[in-house]
């Protein structure tokens, strides 16, 4: 699971902005979504990302893992993953 090539991103004031120049689109991610994105950028597994979310947002790891899976499907649907 990797981020599509050709995207640039940057955190500003707690939000993560992703530029898809090929499609001339700007995506904004905040909270857990930004953590998931940054985990994917570091090639972390879904379980590792879920553990990070559980630690940061005080949710249990099972729920976090389900959320990570859901969001990754969203990212794939948006064409942001390779």
């Amino acid at each position, binding site marked *: 699971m990797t981020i599509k090539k050709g995207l640039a991103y940057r955190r500003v*004031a707690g939000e993560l902005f992703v530029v898809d120049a090929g499609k001339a689109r700007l995506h904004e991610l905040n909270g857990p979504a930004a953590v998931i994105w940054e985990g994917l950028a570091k090639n972390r597994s879904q379980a590792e990302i879920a553990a990070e979310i559980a630690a940061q947002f005080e949710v249990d790891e099972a729920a976090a893992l389900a959320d990570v899976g859901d969001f990754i499907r969203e990212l794939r649907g948006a064409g942001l993953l390779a």
Partner: protein
Amino acid sequence: MAVRRGAPGLAIAGFGVDFKSDSAGIITILRRRYAPFLAKQGRGLELTVFEGPNRRTPFRPCVESGAGRLKLRRGDFDAEIFAGAGRGKAAIAPNEQCLDAFLRSLISWNLLESGGLMLHSSGIVLGGKAYVFPGRSGAGKSTLAKLALKAGAEVISDEINLLRPGPRGWRAYGSPFWGEMRAGGRQASWPVGGLLLLKKAAAPSVLSCAQGEAFRTVMRCLVNFSRSAEVSAKALLAAGRLLAAVPARRLGFSKDNADFLEFIG
């Protein structure tokens, strides 16, 4: 083909372009359309320009770079620039719209490469400082600029402003790229006093705005024709640095008067 040496040089946002062309049509347009931005030759990119076909498509410019070479293409222009050598060549349809589109593509690239940015925005001068109002179509950029002009303020542009960081902060440069007002602009630069996001309102007001909101607006108003991740990263960095250095607020203004000017600065 002999290349005439009488073509003008231009200086826009501190970038020089020395045109060489055998086309009387292109030389005439350059001298007339960009009169306030004419400059002595020998200070910038040497660009040999030939007349090219006036194709309508593709309409959106395409900017690509790699291996020291920059390519700028649209239906009506096709340019190749060797940045290291400081020269290039371009086939350009001899009309104002095409030259405008070509120069917008080139200058937007130059700005991003130098840490600056080209922004869809109005820009006005108050108290020696530039105030920039980013906004997309319909946000009120031209309306605000016309009101400011009528009230005695200088307008930098009602459509596209050119911002660069310098040793003493960000500066807005005179722009030849205008919207409804179709004015000429002039060669000058001013320290940027602030960015103001536009909101139409019955009464003028200035409110704080979240940095994320300002960043989102700047990114959506930024002019970038490149599709590369590297250039997108430069755009993100430039927008972040601009907002770290320049205060951003939200301006409420009415289209009926220039009272908002008292709230700026």
